[in-house]
């Protein structure tokens, strides 16, 4: 089988991963954990899009879109999440992004503003006054200024990539945990029954029992 076929045939795994993240974030009240990262806050916010091959797309927007009745109804109709807004709170830093499940791609990733002013520039009216232009600047001054600007730009870039890598590493660690459940006996024995109970309007999931069972059988 060609690589492209292998990729296409297993795109649904990304949707199941997003479903699992949504499920666990809800039953564990927005606190997830991985071995490498410890505990962190993660929940669905702003938007969720659910779809299936056979029915129309359900788009839900709002502060807690995943908690709506419509979202669970869509799951009962056989739809799975396609994209969702995710909030991540780790080491006192807040990030937000949209996870595109079938590609495991992040969009609109808002990083914590670590470098002062790196994320948002002040409007011109609020910006500190610039020094008056000098009629003749020496070549050396210009070169020094260019170098300073380049260094600043590079520093800001490294910091952004470092923060991006942090977010990606959490998503990857969660995906690895998901795979160990999805590809083991726990999926059918523990996770799917819990998912069905969670989706059922009359069902109930005992979070502690689920956590214990999933750890035991992993």
């Amino acid at each position, binding site marked *: 089988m060609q690589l492209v076929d292998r990729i296409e045939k297993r795109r*649904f795994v990304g949707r199941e991963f997003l479903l699992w993240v949504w499920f666990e974030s809800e039953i564990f009240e927005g606190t997830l954990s991985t071995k490498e990262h410890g505990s962190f806050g993660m929940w669905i916010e702003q938007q969720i899009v659910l779809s299936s091959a056979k029915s129309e797309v359900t788009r839900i927007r709002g502060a807690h879109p995943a908690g709506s009745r419509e979202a669970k109804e869509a799951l009962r109709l*056989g739809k799975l999440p396609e994209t969702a807004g995710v909030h991540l709170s780790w080491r006192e830093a807040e990030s937000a992004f949209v996870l595109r499940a079938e590609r495991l791609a992040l969009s609109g990733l808002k990083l914590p503003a670590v470098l002062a002013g790196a994320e948002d520039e002040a409007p011109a009216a609020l910006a500190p006054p610039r020094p008056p232009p000098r009629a003749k600047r020496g070549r050396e001054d210009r070169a020094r200024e260019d170098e300073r600007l380049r260094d600043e730009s590079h520093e800001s870039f490294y910091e952004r990539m470092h923060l991006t890598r942090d977010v990606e590493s959490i998503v990857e660690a969660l995906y690895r945990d998901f795979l160990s459940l999805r590809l083991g006996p726990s999926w059918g024995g523990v996770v799917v029954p819990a998912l069905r109970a969670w989706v059922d309007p009359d069902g109930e999931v005992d979070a502690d029992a689920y956590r214990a069972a999933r750890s035991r059988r992993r």
Partner: protein
Amino acid sequence: MPALKGSLTYARFFVDGDLPDDFRERFMKSIRLRAMKPLDPDEDALERSGWCRVGEPFETDLGYEDVFYNEFVNLAFRTDRWVVPGPLLRARMREAEAAYLAKKGRERMSKREKTELKELVSKKLRRQLAPAMRAVDLSWSLKDGLVRFFSQAAAPAAAMNELFQKTFSLKLVPEAPYTLAARLGLKKAEESAWQDLEPTLLGGEGA
């Protein structure tokens, strides 16, 4: 310039293959060779892609410090394309056809004459227009063998892949549930479960 500022929307690609020992010199040479060359209205090419400086699409004269940010290679993938507005082209064609027929003292033009005239009119219009330009940032972490391409659209990603392969002689593998699972590494039992994997049904038909 998404790589340097603002929120980030990107697709990840993993680099398949090893870096050559002299990759810095070799890559610089190859990048310069494939730096963006602006379109000329009089040439036949209607579209062209090439590398430019990240965040600075008009900077095509690339130096080492423009490209190498410590262990990152940062570039922008620029594509220029001539886009002549249809109504403008049709109006100019009507004028040109009328002038041509009047000059020749004829009432009709052959198909070939029409094609040649259209080419002339298009070139004339292109001299008055600027090509449409799109530049997408790209950041390659050499340490992780990971390319972040700051667009999720399929067409620019496919064109970038082609130029990346020509420039660096390395293939890119797109991120997906399958490729990430393979990269993270599955145990033997998990690999076998992966082969037999079927979608989980929570509702609808078949649940």
